[in-house]
């Protein structure tokens, strides 16, 4: 299935031919329960893609498969030209430039906010390089900038474990920003944020589009609309619908299983 065939609506993302991520017939099952069912999905370079779908549709599982946390039973995930991600481990995949924000905020609770960012910063990951690494002025500037973006300036030297839920969400987004991966996978980035912050986040994400490739999972339909991107609806482990937000919101099956009346 190519992206072009399911094109039914308008999209704000500038279309480029180059495919960056290609999930091909991916299936995952847990004790007989199919969380992903021959899921196929194409993400282009520089694209912003939102993924929605009912609870338990397999959105998080899909990200698990891409980042190497879960091995699919069947199917492949091709990154770039011909790298099969299903054969690599998490750190190798991360080093290819795939970054992720988890649904449940996961930060290093015993490190400070600053150190969390420092670890995430784009830098060599080799053992001996980290042993000898020095923080340069540009690094510091980057960290400061990210702290500002995420509103955590005054929490700079606090232990991340002492942050509130929402602050952890922001910190995790910050870690992703400073890592500057090729692809950003965002699992429910605005959960627990105020409406205002949600708007800010939407702006932030739109700014990143083009330079980065983004896949965003959300349930907040206003936010999805703000992003103005192409939407994929997952249901029971496979794609139910795909297209613009208006197209999707009008889709009867989507309304039935997801949006409600």
């Amino acid at each position, binding site marked *: 299935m190519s992206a072009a065939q399911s094109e039914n609506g308008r999209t704000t993302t500038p279309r480029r031919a180059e495919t960056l991520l290609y999930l091909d017939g991916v299936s995952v099952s*847990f004790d007989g329960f199919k969380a992903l069912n021959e899921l196929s999905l194409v993400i282009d370079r520089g694209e912003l893609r939102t993924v929605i779908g*009912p609870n338990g549709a397999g959105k998080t599982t899909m990200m698990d498969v891409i980042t190497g946390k879960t091995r699919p039973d069947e199917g492949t995930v091709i990154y770039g030209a011909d790298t099969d991600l299903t054969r690599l481990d998490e750190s190798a995949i991360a080093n290819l430039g795939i970054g992720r924000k988890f649904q449940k905020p996961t930060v290093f609770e015993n490190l400070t906010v600053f150190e969390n960012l420092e670890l995430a910063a784009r830098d060599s990951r080799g053992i001996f390089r980290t042993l000898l690494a020095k923080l340069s002025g540009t690094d510091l500037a980057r960290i400061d900038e990210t702290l500002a973006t995420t509103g955590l300036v005054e929490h700079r030297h606090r232990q991340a474990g002492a942050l509130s*839920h*929402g602050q952890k969400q922001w910190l995790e987004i910050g870690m992703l920003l400073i890592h500057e991966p090729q692809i950003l996978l965002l699992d*429910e980035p605005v959960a*627990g944020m*105020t*409406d205002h912050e949600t708007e800010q986040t939407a702006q932030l994400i739109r700014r990143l589009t083009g330079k980065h490739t983004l896949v965003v999972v959300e349930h907040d*339909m206003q936010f999805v609309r703000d992003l103005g991107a192409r939407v994929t609806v997952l249901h029971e482990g496979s794609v139910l619908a795909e297209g613009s937000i208006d197209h999707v919101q009008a889709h009867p099956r989507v309304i039935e299983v997801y949006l409600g009346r």
Partner: protein
Amino acid sequence: MLNVETIDLFYGASHALRRVSIAAEIGKVTCVLGRNGVGKTSLLRAIFGLQSIRSGRIMWDGEDIAGLKPHERARKGLAIVPQGRDIFPRLTVYENMLTGFAPLAKPLRTIPEEIYQLFPVLKSMLNRRGGDLSGGQQQQLAIARALITRPRLLILDEPTEGIQPSIIKDIERVIKLLAARGDMAILLVEQYLDFAQELADTIVVMERGEVVMNGPKASLDAERMRRYLTV
């Protein structure tokens, strides 16, 4: 009726709640709003005794429960849907729900049918482990588990987080229904303003550990409130 009177809460040296007072009436929905890190979760945890307070009183049914252990408060009819869900990961869905029987008398130990009507997905997953559920499914389970205890004070910390729109609508309906039944006080923390405003009878706005606005929904200055939530 719940009356929290001038409580103070500290994390080490940091003062997380400053002389906070709120009230939650039976049959009403009281909604606490505020930006990240202002102390909403801390307040709820303090009410439940999961975080100890330094001073102030927590009156429930005319009795100060500040000295009681959390499980004793549960026996007094409190129930909580915590932020982060706190499902027992290695208990099955069914067992997770059974934990709701703990504060109940023997004859009341049944799972009301309406729970399954509200969250049909749970019925199909009774034997799956709680930790294996998706985020939204866990949230549903957490609400179900709290309702099974037949609470008279239901505390919900961002219950819509991670839940699909159709179910949010269902939850909204349920909360309304529960409030309308008139035997339950509901204390709700929510970031999703539309949802909060739709449900709330009373609104409390917090800022840096303090209550800055408090009153019936209609009486509050919407513009000021919006300011507190954005800056």
